[in-house]
């Protein structure tokens, strides 16, 4: 594991950004070449949301990976968070523009009437302060403790994101449940486990 960590230390953060934006690049390429299938809007919207959830999983995996596997990826976590925010924001933008086509009356009705939309929007809104406070300057201004407290909202984002995905499914089966289960597991791994006390006797 030391060698893996040594390797990870040498990987620049921008490389993670480049890698993480490959799916977005492919989606854009498919869009301009008309290769998103018969319902391109739905494919784009769904895939962007899907990548949002996947990067959220990676964000939340950083701490357990360090704790249980000794793998230290902490230097990539900010980038992973911002990448998650990017995909989720684009997912929302596609919903408003290409899917609902700026039909504001329907968008407004959805935002107050549809639980899965409300849950998804709540998750997005909760991500905004986290994205805004992701700079070193913001950490200094807030102070480390306050910053850490604020960023615990990520756990709520995870719950809301998983719920949003599960609630739109028509059947209790498949990807939504799998992703929700992984997110739940990553949250459970954060619960304080009873430590075996060293005995002096």
């Amino acid at each position, binding site marked *: 594991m030391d060698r893996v960590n040594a390797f990870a230390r040498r990987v620049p953060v921008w490389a993670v950004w480049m890698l993480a934006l490959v799916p977005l690049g492919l989606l854009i390429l498919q*869009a301009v070449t*008309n290769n*998103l*299938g*018969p*319902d*391109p*809007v*739905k494919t*784009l919207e769904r895939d962007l949301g899907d990548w949002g959830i996947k990067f959220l999983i990676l964000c939340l995996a950083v701490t357990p990976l360090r704790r249980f596997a000794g793998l230290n990826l902490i230097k990539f976590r900010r980038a992973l968070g911002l990448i998650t925010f990017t995909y989720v924001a684009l997912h929302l933008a596609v919903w408003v523009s*290409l*899917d*609902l*086509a700026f*039909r504001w009356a*329907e968008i407004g*009705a*959805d935002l107050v*009437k*549809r*639980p*899965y939309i409300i849950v998804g929007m709540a998750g997005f809104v909760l991500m905004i302060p986290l994205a805004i406070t992701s700079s070193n300057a913001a950490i200094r201004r807030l102070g480390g403790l306050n910053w850490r407290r604020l960023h615990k909202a990520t756990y709520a984002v995870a719950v809301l994101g998983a719920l949003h995905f599960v*609630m*739109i499914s*028509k*059947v*209790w*089966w*498949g990807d939504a449940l799998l992703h929700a289960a992984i997110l739940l597991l990553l949250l459970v791994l954060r619960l304080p486990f009873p430590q075996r006390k060293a005995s002096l006797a």
Partner: protein
Amino acid sequence: EYAKSKYSTDEAPNPLNEITSYNNYYEFGFDKADPARYASALTTDPWSVEIGGLVDKPGSYGLADILKGAPLEERIYRFRCVEAWSMVVPWVGFELSHLLNRVGVQSGAKYVAFETLMRPEEMPGQQTPALDWPYREGLRLDEAMHPLTILATGLYGEPMPNQNGAPIRLVVPWKYGFKSIKSIVKMSLVAEMPSTTWNMMQPNEYGFYANVNPTVDHPRWSQASERRVGAGLFAGREDTRMFNGYEAEVASLYKGMDLAVNY
């Protein structure tokens, strides 16, 4: 090569590749590309449909027998999925009433119940408990006898592709797509309203009638508008039409009924 029908829409049909690569057929998986991916494993010959219940001539009818003398027509219908997308499909089929009249509907019959093939070894979705298999649907007898209601056996003048419900499926164009049950192996004429799969699964979301109705929302999403499949990234949405545009033909079937209650 098939007779044209006065019931066909003059809207342009979606190309065959869209109709055959983007649809729901949960027996083959829950992604809309899954039916095209897996349905080739389905054996559709030999095929027979068991017709029973309150009929004069119950029995197991082979497909060739069912098609003998059936007045096949091209029916270009609008198709509206409950998920708020739509297509235009050039079906080849014949009126369900033709078959029902052949087998002789008895006076006590009020509904028709349909069942899809149950064959998990060829239908991987049926190996999951996602739905209570086999898939079941039903129509009120007057809906079943309506001239718009057809049993379809082809698309674009060719035999029905497996992923679209080969070899014989129902098409009821004024209802959400899930009513148009695929790969039918059983039809029963019954006195009581039959259980139907989506209604059994989520009764507050999927009613027995499932008529396309822009004023009655699905509890989780609006039915006011729809995305036309194949229209591209920037096409936006179009307003959903009452009874999917077939109001003139079918509204009378529901006169006096509260459609918000009987959704």
